[in-house]
């Protein structure tokens, strides 16, 4: 009887020890799930500067991190359209920390001559509706775990 009780006591200690690790692991798991599912993006500014027959586009995106962990951007990929016509695609390595809450990230890219003609056509039409398909690769603070998150946003220039 004593031997069985000793075994049960050892098991209880063992379970408590693994329970501690299990608790912290599950907390990380929930945080990672919140970050992967609840990330939100909002296009807050899109500016176009003309440089001769080319253009430079500056994009500002508000990132809303709903989790309680600090994330970091690794790569930003995007597809850009104006009035439904494809203008540009790009992939940039951008390292910026995203603490819980809102953070603004900014990136820019050049628009070459031929797509710029589409932009000028759209401008002549009177209204430029920009559409950006964003994909952000985020790094979680767990052994280099990466997540792909994305959004489609619109911006209207009169």
């Amino acid at each position, binding site marked *: 009887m004593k031997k069985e009780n000793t*075994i*049960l006591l050892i098991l209880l200690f063992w379970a408590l020890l693994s329970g501690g690790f299990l608790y912290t692991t599950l907390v*990380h798991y929930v945080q990672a799930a919140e970050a992967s599912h609840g990330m939100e993006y909002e296009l807050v500014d899109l500016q176009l500067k003309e440089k001769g027959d080319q253009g430079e586009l500056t994009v500002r995106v508000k990132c809303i991190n709903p989790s309680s962990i600090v994330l970091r951007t690794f790569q930003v990929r995007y597809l850009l359209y104006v009035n439904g016509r494809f203008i540009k695609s790009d992939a940039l390595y951008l390292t910026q920390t995203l603490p819980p809450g809102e953070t603004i990230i900014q990136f820019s890219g050049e628009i070459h001559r031929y797509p710029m003609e589409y932009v000028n056509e759209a401008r002549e039409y009177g209204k430029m509706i920009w559409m950006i398909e964003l994909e952000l690769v985020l790094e979680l603070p767990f052994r*280099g*775990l990466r997540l792909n998150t994305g959004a489609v946003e619109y911006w209207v220039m009169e």
Partner: protein
Amino acid sequence: MMFFSVEDRSRLLRNIAFVFLAAFILSAFTIFLMLERITTFPHYNMSFLFGSGLILGYLTVLVVKDIRKSFLVCLVIVIVTFVLTSLFYSIPSFLGINPDLEPVLFSALGWSMIYSILLLMVLFFGLVIGFILHSTK
């Protein structure tokens, strides 16, 4: 309850406690293995999981002391481990968060079933070792 003597009842309670503790330990190690990149458990998850299975199989012999019942207890441990692992793995879904990290429920059931089958084999192996060691005494 009238059919159980006090000794039978305490033995039953002890066996139930053993099953739940063993299943909890095994499900914790299965979760460490399944969430390898998130876990706070240091290293060697696979070795710890199957090592624990082997030791718990051996301890089943010492606690239950009956070959048929020991196999049955191991089977129950594995079933409870499977259920606990699936529950732990699906916690974000229960909290209303639907993680894109891994498709939740099917993945949880599938992986915990695979690990449970492997654990069952390891537990039986531990049982056999226990019986060999104790039958020679």
